């Protein structure tokens, strides 16, 4: 039995994410994908240049929320309660990367939802090709943001996947070419069946 060790680092994850989002972009078309790109860039600008402003708004809203939860102006001593809840802000230096990540994810989700509602699917290869590249860009941005913001404190960590797959490796080594031939045949037959309208 041979153990196979796969090391997954940041570049691999970034590439996989970009390809996944590229495929999504290929299916969705370019107008929807570019809207997501726009929202992601907006999110990057917000957290890049206006982070303090954004964190301040969220913390104020959080204070009001806590104040209302603890009785608000109807409590016995509102000023004391207000002082107390001010001491527990939501966004702190410790959780700033997580907050940044959530803001960007929220932007991406808004972009995806608006894109689905606003634009109808276009036809033509141009739509899909540009959509693929826009999707790649989105995947890269989302991956980059995730890796750089969420995992910033641990930049050198990698994931190692160790599979005890000696027999599988041996089989694939001997017959991989026949697997490719089989896959090509399946692809041709599927397209032929579709072309003949069966």
């Amino acid at each position: 039995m041979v153990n196979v060790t796969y090391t997954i680092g940041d570049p691999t994850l970034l590439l996989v994410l970009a390809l996944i989002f590229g495929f999504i972009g290929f299916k969705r078309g370019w107008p929807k994908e570019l809207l997501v790109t726009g929202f992601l860039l907006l999110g990057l600008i917000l957290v890049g240049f206006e982070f303090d402003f954004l964190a301040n708004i969220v913390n104020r809203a959080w204070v009001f929320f806590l104040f209302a939860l603890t009785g608000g102006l109807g409590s016995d001593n509102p000023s004391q309660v207000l002082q107390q809840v001010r001491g527990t802000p939501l966004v702190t230096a410790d959780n700033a990367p997580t907050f940044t990540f959530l803001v960007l994810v929220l932007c991406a989700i808004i972009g995806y939802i608006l894109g689905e509602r606003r634009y109808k699917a276009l036809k033509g290869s141009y739509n899909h090709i540009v959509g693929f590249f826009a999707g790649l860009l989105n995947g890269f941005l989302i991956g980059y943001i995730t890796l750089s913001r969420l995992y910033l404190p641990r930049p050198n960590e990698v994931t190692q996947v160790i599979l005890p797959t000696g027999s599988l490796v041996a089989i694939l080594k001997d017959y991989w070419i026949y697997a490719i031939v089989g896959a090509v045949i399946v692809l041709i037959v599927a397209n032929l069946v579709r072309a003949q309208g069966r």
Partner: protein
Amino acid sequence: MNPIEILFFTIVLIFAAIGVVRGFLRELGATLIILVAIYIVADLLDSRRLLATGVRAVNTAYPNPIAGGLDRALSSETILFLLYTTIIIAVTFMSYQGDTLDFKGKNPPGLSGAFMGGLVGAINGYLVGGTIWAYMDKFGYPTKELGLIRPDLLSSFAKMLISYLPIPMLEPLLLPLVLILILLRVLK
């Protein structure tokens, strides 16, 4: 890379480009005819030594019958290589020329149609170029007599590619592949 790999991949690319223009269904018709030709050459003529026996007999009785103006006799291997290559090229030409054996249906539209046409065209190029190369290798590169492709100058990449050419790799699959394509052609 040495010239033989470049030549091989150029043939594959040219066939792929032709495939993009002609379309997936017409290319698949050519694939069927080329596969039949390779099956006849590889399994019926070469493996059963039908042609080899005849060529060797003729070459022994009448040395150099087709050498023409050459100052030395052609070996039986060279003659066999030329015959097999001529058969493959002639059948390929016929499969592309004039009324062709098209598969019925409508080509996939747009990019997927171009991709499938290119893919099947590239497969045809691989079958034609690869079969000629495989026989060239089997008969000890007769082209070396003309100073064209010498086996001692093959790169390691070329040597690795030889085991993936149609004759060594696909020979056991030739008949099933022909049958599958014939079934797909006739089934409605």
